[in-house]
């Protein structure tokens, strides 16, 4: 290891007191058998920060009632907390108006909302949709459904051997005058950080809108949707140290105003008669039914906690830990890392393959060392096809990840190599 910074050095450089941060995550003190948990699966779902757990608990114990319904005290408190959560998410994402935030179940639902509501009204036979090879299934399948329903065509932008988008293919796709470009901010497999602001400008020059999947990026870096110049941005709570069952769509208010509703029901209407209904204004227009109130509050509490830590130091820590992981993985014979090579701005996740050992088996043996990683296709099968593999093992990091956990990962991989005689 020699040349690589120790835990305390890395934490100092990043401005994060990682040992103190870890005390805010109860799960991290778990033992897996006789080994301490090394949780390297935050890209799938991050652990819950105490601030979020406690905010949900307080709400459930003292303030719960339905929102936007009653005139009683509890309903007022629940409504204030829920709308306060919306304001927090809006602030965290750099939205100019909190009405630009629509609460949904997860980033998947946010993208489905856009594909169904905006796509259904604006995409027709012969229109084109641009996707990239590195998209998660959640940013592929809703567009395939839209294409199948309308007769639109999908154009794919490929990736090069370093996991970066192929610029010529993006330009060629934009030359065909697409209606929308849907792209991930940070690849959930490769760790590729796409130049979203630049691509947004290119898309707009070509007359297209741009949707960005921010599920992986929001927990790792400051996101400013206004500064990025995008049209839609999809995020989820549970990858950002908050609860499952809550996410948000940020969209330009004028777009939300023009779009037809997504799901029908209570809350999304202005008036209903036997003859029909009229819609509420955004964001209520897109929030049919009783929302996930406690979860929205929990998501907002996690984001406030992140903002208190500071997204600058969070990103610096992600970069430090990724650099350390890439350096250590490079020492393992027969191990191949997918995605961009080590660089100061590289962030996780890190996907890899160990020669002669299936990723499932790597993950199973790592679990015996207390190391949690994901093995599989990561809901990105077109990318797996591009890489020529069925699956990879993936280590993904968070604010609480230590170099000691990366060392446990390496020890576990060495054990797998010993067991398999690789």
């Amino acid at each position, binding site marked *: 290891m020699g040349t690589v910074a120790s835990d305390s050095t890395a934490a100092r450089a990043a401005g994060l007191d990682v040992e103190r941060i870890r005390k805010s995550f109860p799960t991290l003190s778990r033992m897996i058998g006789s080994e301490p948990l090394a949780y390297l699966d935050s890209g799938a779902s991050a652990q819950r920060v105490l601030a979020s757990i406690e905010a949900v608990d307080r709400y459930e114990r003292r303030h719960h009632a339905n929102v936007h319904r009653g005139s009683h005290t509890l309903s007022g408190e629940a409504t204030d907390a829920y709308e306060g959560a919306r304001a927090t998410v809006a602030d965290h994402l750099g939205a100019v108006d909190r009405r630009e935030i629509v609460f949904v179940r997860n980033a998947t639902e946010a993208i489905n909302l856009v594909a169904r509501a905006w796509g259904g009204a604006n995409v027709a036979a012969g229109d084109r949709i641009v996707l990239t090879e590195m998209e998660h299934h959640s940013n592929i399948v809703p567009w395939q459904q839209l294409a199948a329903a309308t007769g639109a065509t999908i154009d794919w932008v490929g990736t090069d051997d370093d996991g970066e988008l192929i610029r010529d293919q993006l330009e060629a796709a934009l030359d065909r005058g697409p209606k929308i470009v849907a792209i991930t901010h940070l690849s959930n497999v490769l760790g590729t950080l796409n130049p979203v602001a630049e691509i947004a400008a290119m898309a707009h020059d070509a007359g297209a809108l741009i949707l960005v999947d921010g599920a992986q990026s929001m927990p790792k870096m400051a996101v400013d949707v206004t500064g990025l110049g995008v049209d839609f941005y999809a995020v989820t709570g549970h990858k950002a140290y908050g609860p499952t069952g809550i996410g948000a769509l940020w969209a330009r208010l004028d777009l939300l105003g023009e779009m037809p509703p997504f799901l029908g029901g209570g809350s999304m209407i202005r008036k209903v008669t036997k003859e029909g209904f009229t819609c509420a204004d955004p964001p209520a227009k897109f929030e049919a039914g009783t929302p996930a109130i406690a979860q929205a509050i929990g998501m907002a509490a996690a984001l406030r906690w992140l903002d208190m830590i500071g997204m600058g130091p969070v990103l610096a820590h992600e970069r430090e830990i990724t650099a350390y992981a890439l350096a250590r993985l490079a020492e393992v014979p027969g191990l191949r890392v997918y995605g961009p090579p080590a660089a100061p701005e590289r962030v996780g996740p890190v996907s890899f393959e160990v020669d002669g050992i299936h990723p*499932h088996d790597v993950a199973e043996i790592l679990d015996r060392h207390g190391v949690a990683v994901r*093995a*599989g296709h990561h809901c990105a099968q077109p990318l797996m096809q591009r890489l020529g593999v069925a699956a990879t093992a993936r280590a993904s990091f968070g604010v609480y990840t230590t170099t000691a956990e990366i060392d446990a990962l390496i020890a576990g991989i060495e054990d797998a190599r010993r067991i398999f005689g690789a």
Partner: protein
Amino acid sequence: MDELYRDQILEHYKRPHNFGRLDEYDLEFEDTNPFCGDEQHVFIKLDDEGRVSAVSFEGQGCAISTAATSLLTDELVGMTREELLRLPKEKVLDLLGIEISATRMKCAMLGLKVVKSASLGEPADWEDEGEAGDPAEAGSI
């Protein structure tokens, strides 16, 4: 020392029996483990009496799925399609001779599922162990 990755499993993983594609076959089926994207393709040749005379498989998978199908295909010669369809999951578990966790059950059973689907000529009706859900489990954590 390592129960799951004992020598027999690793041996079948590294040098699977009946691996490859039969030149001539009467039944075949390909399926994937949706959890991880692993694929297996099974080929079965029947004799005049409708009994399995040769069987092979190809695909990519983990040690558990590859060893399970390697071990299973060693057992199938002489069976009728009906007998293939009646093969219980326990048969595969007995052949593996190791404890299989709920998360790896799909891996262990992929080959059996594909063999049954090949016999039927369509995807076999299937419920994996551990998917049915046990209310006691939900209450215990």
